[in-house]
């Protein structure tokens, strides 16, 4: 698409353009209007937002009014900002303006990404080599300190367990559910899928509350698991064989299975019926049809779901924070980072842990970019 549009837009625009724009030379007045407008809008928007934080009294301390002002200032500000950018750029000589306008449209988005993600990432790497309050560099001390710390290895092992178990089981459960719901009538399928999908909408905190109070409750009169097994175990404190971690993984799988189901079910529906028929005519049973015909054709979607859950699991924090706070050998690195930064107040070690997290994410990042490139190349 990119190459084709480049050749089609260029010849047509100059052919008609000059008629309306009179050769489109620089127009100093519009240029000034654009610049001044830009400055005024930016100044106003920034100050309105700052006033929301500094002087809530101006808004009668009304939260609803502040939210309204925020939405109006944000939307209106952005619309006007882009309008004046457009005025400014169109006043430039046409050749220049054609080249600049894409960047002008991208600058706000990239500015926010740079401010909120790229700059902090660099700064965090920077902090990782500094002391606990980021006032002096200490070389590799933080990394030495975390890698010789037994609790860091416990967390890393737990992360490995989460990474091995949760994505595979989520895909498996999602596939299982998708296979069976796919054979229901249309309305039955929709209904069953909605119920299985529902946990996806609730927060990790609410989900953890449900499972802690109603299922893993140590009181056998109140907790379903103890009631079923006739035991009175405090499940979330049982670290034999990392049982508590496994039980917390169940919660995440319960929440994510619906997501896997939706994507996989869509892919299964896309498998051409005649390939299935052909396999059946050749005498394949349903299991062979599934493993040798369906699965190879939906491999791309299986990978997508798998990678998405892997990314989620690497960052898993809320469930463990709420249920055990990392005690009984259940810590993970995202939570250890949090404890290091806010409980121990050691910014250096916390940053070093995040750098490890970042390194773990890196292969997935590379994989994503490569997949994207391959797709664009097609």
């Amino acid at each position, binding site marked *: 698409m990119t190459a084709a549009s480049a050749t089609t837009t260029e010849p047509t*625009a100059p052919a008609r353009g000059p008629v309306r724009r009179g050769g489109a030379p620089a127009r100093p007045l519009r240029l000034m209007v654009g610049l001044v407008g830009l400055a005024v809008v930016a100044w106003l928007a920034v100050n309105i937002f700052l006033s929301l934080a500094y002087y809530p009294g101006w808004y009668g301390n009304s939260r609803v009014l502040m939210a309204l002002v925020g939405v109006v200032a944000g939307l209106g500000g952005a619309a006007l900002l882009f309008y004046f950018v457009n005025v400014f750029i169109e006043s430039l000589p046409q050749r220049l303006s054609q080249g600049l306008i894409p960047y002008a449209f991208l600058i706000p988005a990239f500015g*926010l990404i740079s401010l*909120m993600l790229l700059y902090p990432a660099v700064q965090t790497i920077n902090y990782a080599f500094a002391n606990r309050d980021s006032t002096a560099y200490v070389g590799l001390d933080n990394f030495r300190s975390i890698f010789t710390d037994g609790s860091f290895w416990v967390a890393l092992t737990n992360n490995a367990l989460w990474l091995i178990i949760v994505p595979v089981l989520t895909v498996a459960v999602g596939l299982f559910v998708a296979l069976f719901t796919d054979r229901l009538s249309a309305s039955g399928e929709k209904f069953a899928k909605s119920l299985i999908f*529902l946990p996806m909408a609730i927060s990790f905190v609410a989900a953890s509350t449900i499972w802690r109070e109603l299922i893993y409750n140590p009181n056998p009169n109140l907790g379903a698991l103890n009631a079923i097994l006739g035991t009175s175990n405090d499940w979330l404190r049982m670290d034999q064989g990392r049982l508590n971690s496994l039980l917390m993984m169940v919660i995440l799988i319960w929440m994510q299975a619906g997501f896997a189901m939706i994507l996989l079910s869509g892919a299964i529906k896309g498998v051409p019926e005649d390939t299935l028929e052909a396999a059946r005519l050749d005498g394949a049973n349903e299991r062979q049809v599934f493993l040798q015909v369906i699965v190879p054709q939906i491999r791309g979607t299986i990978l997508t779901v798998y990678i998405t859950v892997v990314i989620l699991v690497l960052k898993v924090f809320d469930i463990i924070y709420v249920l055990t706070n990392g005690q009984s050998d259940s810590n993970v690195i995202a939570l250890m980072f949090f404890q290091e930064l806010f409980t121990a107040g050691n910014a250096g070690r916390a940053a070093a842990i995040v750098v490890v997290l970042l390194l773990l994410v890196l292969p997935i990042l590379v994989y994503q970019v490569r997949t994207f490139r391959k797709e664009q190349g097609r």
Partner: protein
Amino acid sequence: MSAAVTSAPAERTSNRQPGFMKDGRRRSWTSIIVATVLAALWVLPSLALFLSTLRSRDAQASVGWWNVFTDPLNQGWTLDNYTGVLQGQDMGASLLNTLVVSVPATILPIMFAAFGAYAFAFMNFPAKETLFVIIVGVMVVPIQVALSPMLNLLGPNGVGISGQFVAVWLLHTGFGMPLCLYTLRNYMSTLPFSVVESAKIDGASHYQTFWLLVAPMSIPAIAAFATLQFLWVWNDLLIAKLFLLPSNTTVVVRVQQMLGTQGQGAEIVTAGAFISMIVPILVFVLLQRFFVRGLTSGSVKG
């Protein structure tokens, strides 16, 4: 299943046979049974929470939630837990806070991302590929990376807005930006290029083309992202906990605090948790179509 039954009279003239569904496929009883069991299992925890919150404090502390099915008359049905949590735990104010956080944090990223997505979809410029690859990469970066530097930047030694709603709007706008750009650009790429082309020939500026043509046509993608982002912001614990003052805090943070308080009555915690779930469930039921579409397009295509 029920729809198949009710529409049966209309279909009677067709050659539909027992054991077959409306669309001609064979009815699979194994699938019906398995799917029913799975759906029941999946919905049971949420349903149990809801039913449990309607039981009296004594019932909740003495007998398990499954007794609502075996002994429904002796559960001391009551709404006291909800009045208790709304009054005693300031849940009403937290609910309002959560809306004040979520609505702007959902709307603001769209405006900024939409123009960028337009540039990616309809314009040609050097470095286009590289810039978009950056977006694809940044989507994977965990937000933990940003927390400590952003606390310094927005905190009292920096801009001094940490603790206020503005700080959280800004953070969610920034963190939601890569996904929003990605989703909108992918959708806009599927729109016919000729539309933009003809607008350009008619002398429309890019700004006009965006507003009059591309933005209205992109509504499905915008709705999909908005649903996803709204649920994400509503359910977020980390940013709300770190960047909001206690008086501005959200329901999810309140529930987390209740869970952490030793000796807090379970009936209060469960009622609080259910209150925090009402809005997401409503959004889910009403906007499920957009939510699914958002998830499908937002999960990076393999």
